[in-house]
C-alpha cells in the first residue's frame, strides 16, 4: 500500500508532486507565470527522491514541445510546461504530435490567465485544443491538480496521445492541503527509439492516415472517458454546465441562494473531447441549459457543435456572461436571482476609493534604469521610436513604445525601419527574449540589410519569471556569436555609465547596418558584483544648495530611492533614501549640477 501524507502546497507544487507520483522521467519548459514554479518544485522533488529526472530548460516553447516529444518517442514519461502565450510558439509541433502519437505518457501543462494578471493578454487558448486534437483536463481544486496530473499520464499512455492540463492563474498560486504519495517506485524504463516511418515520416498519404487514427482516438476517448461531476437535483429542468473554476463558483452560488432543488449541475473535468452520451443524458428533460465558463465560451461552442441535433432545450451561455476578464461571481449571482425571481440583498459596504494603479518601476540599482535614461535622453531629442519587449525591461510601461509579445521589440522595429524615412528607431529586449527568438529576428535583419540598432539588456538571467538560467548566466561570447550571424557592429556599454552609453549611442545614429549594443549589468536581485562591491563602501548624498531642480534624477532616471520630501507637489526637496539605495552611483553620473556626491563610508 502506498504511503500518503498531507502536504501544504500550491498548484504548481501539486502538479510536480503528481508528475513525480506518475513516474515522470523528463521535463521541458519555458518559464512563464503562473506556472513558473513547477520546474523548481520538480527539481527539488527529484533531488529529494533521487529519481534522475532529465530536465530541458528550453530557450523557447517550441524547443520545449519538441524535446518533450523526443523523450516521449523513446518511452519516457514527459512533462512539458508553458504559459498560455507560449502555446502560440509551441503550436507548430503540437499540431503534429497527435498524428505521430506518443509512447511515454506526455502531459502538457499550460498556465492560463483570465484577467491578464501576469500577462500581456488573456488569450483563450482553448481554441487550439480541437486543432491539436489532444484531450484537455481542467482541475477545479489543488487536489485535482495533483490527481489530474497523475491520471493524465495514464490517459496519455492508454491512447498514445499527449494530454493537456490547463491551470488558471487564480488556481496556480493558491495553496491548500493535498494528499500526496510520498513513496514511489519509479518504473525502470529502457528508453529506445523504435523507428517507424509510418508514424514519424508524416507526409502525404501517411499524414492523412495518421490524421484518421487521431480522429478515431479522440472519438474513442469521447465515448470511453467519463470525467465529470454531477451535483444537486437531477430532476430539475434547469441545467448548468461548468468547467474548471466556474464549478466551485456556481456550486457556492447555488447553495447560497438555496437553489439545490431547482438546478442540476454538471462539471466537465474532461473538457475535450466532449462525451456526447453524457451530454445527451444530462440535457434530456431539461427546459434550459446554461453554460457558465470563463473566457470565450469554448465548451458551449463544442457542445453546440457536437450535440446540435440532440439539444432540444433552450441553450444560453456567452449571451449572459462576458468573455473578457475573470468570470465574476457577482455576474453568476445576478443571473440566478433574475432567473429564479430572488430579491436582491442590499449590501452595505464601505464606499470604494479610487486608488491610482501602481506604475511598474525598475528596482533600485537595476541596470535597466541607467539604460533607459541613456536611451530616453537620446531618443527624446529626436522624437525617436523605442521598440519594447517582454521582460523586466518593460516593467515601467511608459519607457518603450509597445509591449506585446516575445521578440516584438526587434520584430516590429525592423518592419518599421524598412518603411520609415525620417523617424529614428531602435529596438530593445532582454537576454531572455534574445535567445527565445530575438537572435533569429536579428539574423533576419542582417539578411534583409536593414539599418537598425538593437539593444540587448544582458542581466545574466531570466529575471522576470524567477531568475532562471539564461545562456548568459555562465560565460557567453556575444561578440563571436553576433559576428557569426553577420551583425555589422557590436558596441559594449555599461548601464552604470550612462554618459558613455549616450555618447556611443549618439555616434551610431548616423550610420547604417545592423548594430547591437550589448548592455551588460546583472540583475540586482540575483547577485550583481558591481553593486555588492559598492554597497557597504559608499553612500550618495544630494546637496540641495547645488540642486537645480532639473528632475533628471527624479523623473528621467526615476530611481525609486530618490524621493521628494517636499509637502507641496509643485516644489522639490529631493533626498536619497539610503535604506533603499544600493549605491549604483548612476544618479551621481547623470546629475548636470554636480549636486550628488558619492562618499566613502567612514
Amino acid at each position, binding site marked *: 500500500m502506498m504511503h500518503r501524507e498531507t502536504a*501544504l502546497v500550491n498548484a504548481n507544487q501539486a502538479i510536480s508532486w503528481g508528475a513525480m507520483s506518475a513516474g515522470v522521467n523528463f521535463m521541458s519548459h519555458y518559464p512563464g*507565470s503562473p506556472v513558473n514554479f513547477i520546474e523548481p518544485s520538480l527539481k527539488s522533488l527529484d533531488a529529494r527522491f533521487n529519481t534522475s529526472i532529465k530536465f530541458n530548460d528550453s530557450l523557447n516553447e517550441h524547443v520545449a514541445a519538441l524535446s518533450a516529444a523526443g523523450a516521449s518517442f523513446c518511452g519516457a514519461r514527459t512533462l512539458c510546461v508553458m504559459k498560455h502565450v507560449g502555446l502560440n510558439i509551441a503550436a507548430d509541433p503540437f499540431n503534429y504530435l497527435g498524428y505521430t502519437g506518443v509512447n511515454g505518457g506526455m502531459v502538457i501543462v499550460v498556465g492560463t490567465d483570465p484577467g491578464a*494578471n*501576469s*500577462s500581456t493578454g488573456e488569450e483563450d487558448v482553448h481554441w487550439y485544443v480541437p486543432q491539436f486534437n489532444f484531450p484537455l483536463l481542467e482541475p*477545479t*481544486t489543488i487536489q485535482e491538480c495533483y490527481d489530474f496530473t497523475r491520471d493524465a499520464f495514464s490517459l496519455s499512455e492508454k491512447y498514445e496521445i499527449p494530454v493537456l492540463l490547463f491551470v488558471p*492563474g*487564480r*488556481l496556480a*498560486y*493558491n*495553496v*491548500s*492541503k493535498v494528499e500526496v504519495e510520498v513513496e514511489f517506485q519509479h518504473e525502470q524504463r529502457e528508453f529506445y527509439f523504435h523507428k517507424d516511418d509510418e508514424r514519424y515520416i508524416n507526409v502525404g498519404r501517411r499524414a492523412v492516415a495518421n490524421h484518421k487514427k487521431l480522429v478515431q482516438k479522440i472519438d474513442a476517448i469521447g465515448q470511453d472517458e467519463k470525467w465529470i461531476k454531477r451535483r444537486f437535483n437531477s430532476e430539475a429542468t434547469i441545467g448548468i454546465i461548468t468547467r474548471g*473554476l466556474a464549478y*466551485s*463558483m456556481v*456550486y*457556492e452560488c447555488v*447553495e447560497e441562494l438555496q437553489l439545490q432543488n431547482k438546478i442540476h449541475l454538471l462539471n466537465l473535468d474532461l473538457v475535450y473531447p466532449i462525451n456526447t452520451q453524457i451530454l445527451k443524458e444530462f440535457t434530456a428533460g431539461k427546459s434550459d441549459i446554461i453554460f457558465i465558463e470563463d473566457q470565450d465560451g469554448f465548451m458551449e461552442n463544442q457542445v453546440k457543435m457536437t450535440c446540435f441535433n440532440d439539444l432540444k432545450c433552450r441553450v444560453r451561455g456567452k449571451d449572459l456572461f462576458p468573455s473578457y476578464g475573470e468570470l*465574476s*461571481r*457577482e455576474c453568476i*449571482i445576478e443571473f440566478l436571482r433574475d432567473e429564479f425571481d430572488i430579491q436582491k440583498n442590499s*449590501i*452595505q*459596504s*464601505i*464606499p*470604494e*476609493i479610487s*486608488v*491610482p*494603479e*501602481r*506604475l*511598474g*518601476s525598475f*528596482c533600485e540599482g537595476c541596470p535597466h534604469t541607467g539604460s533607459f535614461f541613456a536611451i530616453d535622453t537620446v531618443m527624446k531629442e529626436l522624437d525617436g521610436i523605442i521598440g519594447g519587449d517582454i521582460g*523586466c525591461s518593460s*516593467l515601467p510601461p*511608459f519607457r518603450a513604445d509597445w509591449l506585446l509579445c516575445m521578440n516584438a521589440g526587434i520584430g516590429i522595429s525592423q518592419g518599421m525601419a524598412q518603411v520609415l524615412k525620417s523617424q529614428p528607431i531602435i529596438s530593445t529586449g532582454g537576454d531572455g527574449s534574445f535567445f527565445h527568438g530575438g537572435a533569429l529576428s536579428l539574423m533576419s535583419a542582417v539578411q534583409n540589410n536593414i539599418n537598425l540598432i538593437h539593444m540587448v539588456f544582458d542581466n545574466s538571467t531570466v*529575471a*522576470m519569471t524567477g531568475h532562471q538560467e539564461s545562456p548568459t548566466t555562465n560565460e557567453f561570447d556575444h561578440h563571436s556569436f553576433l559576428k557569426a550571424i553577420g551583425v555589422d557592429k557590436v558596441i559594449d556599454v555599461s548601464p552604470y555609465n550612462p554618459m558613455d552609453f549616450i555618447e556611443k549611442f549618439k555616434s551610431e545614429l548616423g550610420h547604417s547596418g545592423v548594430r547591437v549594443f550589448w548592455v551588460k549589468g546583472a540583475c540586482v*536581485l540575483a547577485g550583481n558584483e558591481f553593486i555588492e562591491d559598492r554597497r557597504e563602501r559608499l553612500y550618495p548624498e544630494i546637496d540641495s544648495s547645488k540642486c537645480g531642480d532639473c*528632475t533628471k534624477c*527624479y*523623473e528621467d532616471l*526615476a530611481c*525609486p530611492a530618490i*524621493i*521628494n520630501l517636499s509637502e507641496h*507637489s509643485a516644489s522639490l526637496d529631493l533626498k536619497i533614501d539610503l535604506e533603499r539605495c544600493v549605491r549604483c552611483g548612476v544618479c551621481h553620473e547623470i546629475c548636470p549640477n554636480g549636486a550628488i556626491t558619492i562618499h566613502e563610508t567612514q
Partner: protein
Amino acid sequence: MKGSILNIIVCGTGGRGVQHLSKLIRLLALRKGFGCEGASFKGGAQRMGTVYSELRIFDTDKFELISSHIPMGEVHVIIGLEPWEALRFSGRCSQDAKVIVNTDIESLFIERFMDETLSNPIEMLASIFKNPILKNYNDIALDTTDARRSVNVLILEDAITEGALPFTLEELKKVY
C-alpha cells in the same frame, strides 16, 4: 466566524511579505481544522507592484466546496502591509470590516510624473473604517527584541488580539 466563512484580504506591495503572511494565515486555519480557499495575485513586477491574496476560511462541516472569489461587499478583514493597498480594497469590504494596516507608505510612483495631488491614505482609512488599527509596524519591529517577531508577525498578533482572526497568540507562536 461570520456566517461560517471569514473573508480576508492580505495586501501590500512586492517585497513586503504578502505571500508569507498569507501562508501563515493558511497554516493557522488548516491546523485548526478549518478549510481555506483563496488566490494570490502578484503581477509581473519584481518589486513595488500591487500584491494581494484573497483568503476564505470556512467551517468544513458546513461547506463541501467554496470558490476562491470573495463576494463583493463581503471582505470581513483587511490586513494591509501598505496603506494605499489597503485603501484599494475598501469598496469590497463589509461595513463592519476590521482593518489592520502598516502605515509605512510605499510611494505610488505616479506623483513624480503627473500633477495629480494624492490624498493621505492613512487619513482616508481612518475616516471610512470603524476603529481601524493603523500603526507603523516597521518601527515597532525595530524596537522589538525578539527578532522572529517581524512586521508580519506583529500585524498578525494585532489582528488576533482584535478578534479579527479566529486564532490565539499561542497558535500563532507555533507557526513562526
